[in-house]
C-alpha cells in the first residue's frame, strides 16, 4: 500500500488515537486532540471530519461498542490505528524531527525563548 502523507491536524488526531489505545472514541479523542493542539481550540466537528477522512484513507479502523445508558442507549465508535496509519505517523514524526533540528540549528537558543513566550501567552 502507498504511504499517505498526513496533514498537521491528521497527525495530531492519529497521535491521540495512538496515545488513547483501547479507549479511543469521539469524546476522548477530542479531549486528547484539544490537549495536544494547545493553545489552539479544536471543535468536535473537525475531529469527526478528520476521523472520517482517516478511515476513508484506511489509516484508522473503527467499530461500534455495545450501547450504554450514560450515552442514552447509544454505542461508542471506537478507533484503532492501522498498520498503514502507524507507518504514516512514523514518517510524519521523522519529518517533524528533521524540520525541528533544521530550525533549531538556525535559531538556536532563540527558538526556546519564542516557545516560552507562546506558553506564557496561552
Amino acid at each position, binding site marked *: 500500500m502507498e504511504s499517505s502523507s498526513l496533514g498537521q491536524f491528521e497527525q495530531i488526531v492519529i497521535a491521540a488515537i495512538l496515545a488513547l489505545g483501547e479507549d479511543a472514541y469521539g469524546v476522548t479523542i477530542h479531549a486528547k486532540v484539544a490537549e495536544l493542539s494547545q493553545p489552539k481550540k479544536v*471543535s468536535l*466537528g473537525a475531529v469527526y471530519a478528520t476521523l*472520517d477522512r482517516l478511515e476513508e484513507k484506511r489509516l484508522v479502523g473503527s467499530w461500534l461498542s455495545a450501547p450504554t445508558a450514560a*450515552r*442514552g442507549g447509544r*454505542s461508542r*465508535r471506537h478507533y484503532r490505528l492501522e498498520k498503514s496509519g502507524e507507518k504514516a505517523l512514523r514518517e510524519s514524526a521523522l519529518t517533524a524531527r528533521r524540520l525541528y533540528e533544521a530550525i533549531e540549528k538556525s535559531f538556536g537558543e532563540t527558538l526556546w525563548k519564542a516557545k516560552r513566550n507562546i506558553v506564557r501567552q496561552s
Partner: protein
Amino acid sequence: MEGVVELLIPPAAREAVAGDLRELYSSPRQYGLAALKALPCVIASQARRNANLPLLGLQGVILYASIVTLAPAWSAEAMLLTLLALLVLLLRDAYQPVRRPATRIAILQTQGVSFLVLIYFMTLGRGYHVPDSQLSPLLIVLPFSMPLLVTLRAFLILHCERQQPLPDAEMTFEDMARDYRGFAERARRANGLEIVALFLAMAVGTGLVLYFGPATAPIGWALLCLFALAAAWLLLRGTAPALQRMADFAALRMLYRHELARQGQIRRFMWWLWFSPAFACFVAIADHGLVAGRPVLTAFGLIPMAFTGFCIAALNRERGGWVQENIVALALMRERRPF
C-alpha cells in the same frame, strides 16, 4: 431538542455523534452549542464520504443537457438549476439511510409505477401517429426500459429479501475471510459481466450511430466514449483486493466495509450509465415534440424520463440500503475465537 439534533445528524454517524453529544451534556445551552458546531462538519464529511463524483457528474450532464436542449435560451438558468440539483443530491447522499426501505413500501411503489407504465402504453397504443421515420423506432423500443426497470426493481426486492444478512453478533476470522472472498468473487463476476456488456453495447451503439447518421453522432460518440471509459476503469480498478496474509480481524473488517461501500458506489454509477442512452433518446423525443409543436410527443419524452429516473433512484436506494445494513453489521461485529 435532543430529538431534533438526532434527526439532523446523518444516519451513518447518528449512533456515535448523538452518543458523544449526550455524554458531553452539561446544560441545554452547552448541548445546543456543541451540536451547532459539530453538525456542519459531520454533514459535510458524510456528504463527501458518500458522494459518488462520477455519478454526480453524469447526473449533472444529463440534467443540464436536457434543460438546454428543451430550452436553449435558458443556459444560465439551467446551470444554476443543475448546481442546485447537485447540492440536493449531495445532501441526499449525506443522509443515506442505513437500512433498506420497507419491502411493503417498495412493492407499493413498484405497483404504482407499473400502473403508470400501463397507462403510458395504453395511450401510446391508441394509435398516436409518428410520421418521423427516425423517431418511431425510439418511441417503440425505448419505453420498454420502464417495464424493464420495474421488473428489475421487483427482482431486486426479492433478491435482497432472500440474501442472508451478516450475523450481527460474532464471527470467527476464518468465517469472515470466507464471506469476504465470496463477496470479492461475486463482485469480480459482476464487474466482468458489466465489462462484456459494455463492449457489446459499444458495438451495437457504433452501429446505431452510423445508421442514424450525423444527427445523433455527437451525443452517440460521447456516450460511447463514456462506456469505453467505464469499461477501462472497471477492468483496471473494479476488482475487490485480495485479503492480505498478515491481516487480523479488525483489518479484514475494515477492508470488507470499505469494499462493500466501493462496490456499491460502482453499481450505483452503472445503473445510471446503462440508462443514459435512454435519457438521451427521451430528451430527443421531447425536443422533437417541442420543435414540431406537438405537446403530446413532448410528454411522451418527459414522462418516461421521470419514470426512469425514479426507478433507477429506487433501485439504488434498495441496493444502497442493503449495503449500508451490512456495513453497520460489520461495524458491530466481534471476533469469535475458535476453540
